[in-house]
């Protein structure tokens, strides 16, 4: 299942410490409020214009060569 992810376009931000604590508690098997299922965005990615990757793909061939 791919969860609904309308927050996917949110700016990267440091997670709220309360959320983080609730999440950790959930990890320990302690039920807390619904906040634990809210995704938190980890902090150290730069959201900025990023050059398109020039990484060559695997698994392709020229069209004129048989597969």
């Amino acid at each position: 299942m791919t969860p609904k992810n309308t927050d996917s376009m949110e700016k990267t931000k440091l997670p709220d410490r309360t959320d983080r604590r609730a999440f950790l508690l959930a990890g320990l098997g302690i039920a807390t409020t619904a906040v634990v299922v809210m995704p938190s965005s980890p902090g150290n990615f730069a959201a900025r214009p990023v050059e398109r990757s020039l990484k060559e793909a695997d698994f392709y061939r020229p069209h004129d060569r048989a597969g």
Partner: protein
Amino acid sequence: MTTVVCELCPRYCAIPDGGAGDCRIRVNLKGRLIATTFGRPSSVHIDPMEKKPLYHFFPGTPIFSLATAGCNLHCLNCQNWQLSQRGGEEMEEIYHAPPEMIVATARAERCQSIAYTYSEPIVYYEYVHATAQLAREAGLNNCLISAGYINERPLRQLCRVMDAANIDVKGFTEDFYRRICSATLAPVLRGLVVMREEGVWVEVTLLIIPGENDDPLQVRGLARWIHDEMGADTPLHLSRFHPHYRMQNLPPTPVDTLLRCRQMALDAGLHFVYVGNVIGNGGESTYCPHDGTLLIERFGLVIKENHLLAGGRCPVCGNPLPGVWT
């Protein structure tokens, strides 16, 4: 001008110079196929493992989750269409995150696992593979959350660095795949067998869409297929449809329908059938297949009680619960 053929997925897109594959993100640049979203995710979060959903793989632990734009399916009901049905350049946010940065951040955030998820990791294959390789060297687990629409050779290579997968089987007829997803079913089933052969822990999801794939032919059919080809211990997640994207005309799946489908799958011999996207439905906890003991009690994505002993053993009969626990 050199046209190339992408051999990653069953579409075998013939891509002219300057063009992109059906996934929008594999681009022909003067005869070289470029993975344009390599190191450029548009969605990065820490989720509970249960959200993937993986219920028999390190329950209750946080999993570092990422996705780039692009997908090789075009499901009418896509929940993540803003991410999946776009090319890399159309995203409002693109992060600079090469594989080593993903692994370092996952470790810094104390995540033992990384999920390649949300859109479709198959189409950003090279990024997944490179990151997963580094993650494995660092002692982290890798989880593929995918529709599994990929050719066998790349899949086998990917399986060597994957620990677990949740594969979203969309329906159980070719007609469903053609009409709703613009894809085909057979390669997905083949891929599931390949993953089992390669030793990846696999759980399967079927999103139940009312009137489209909730009939006995499909639900029982898939459950029997899983039972026969993957084994009765393969968890099946039946999850609730909500109207999204180009399928806003249907209501959310009635809970009764989900419970009826669950019973069909249990009757087909599967040991672990879960109902997802409905909180408190009675079909979200794990019971011992030998004696019925409640082993993991869940409420939504939260684990209320985990009674498993070391090694994932049942406290009553001592049998290990199928899955990966330590």
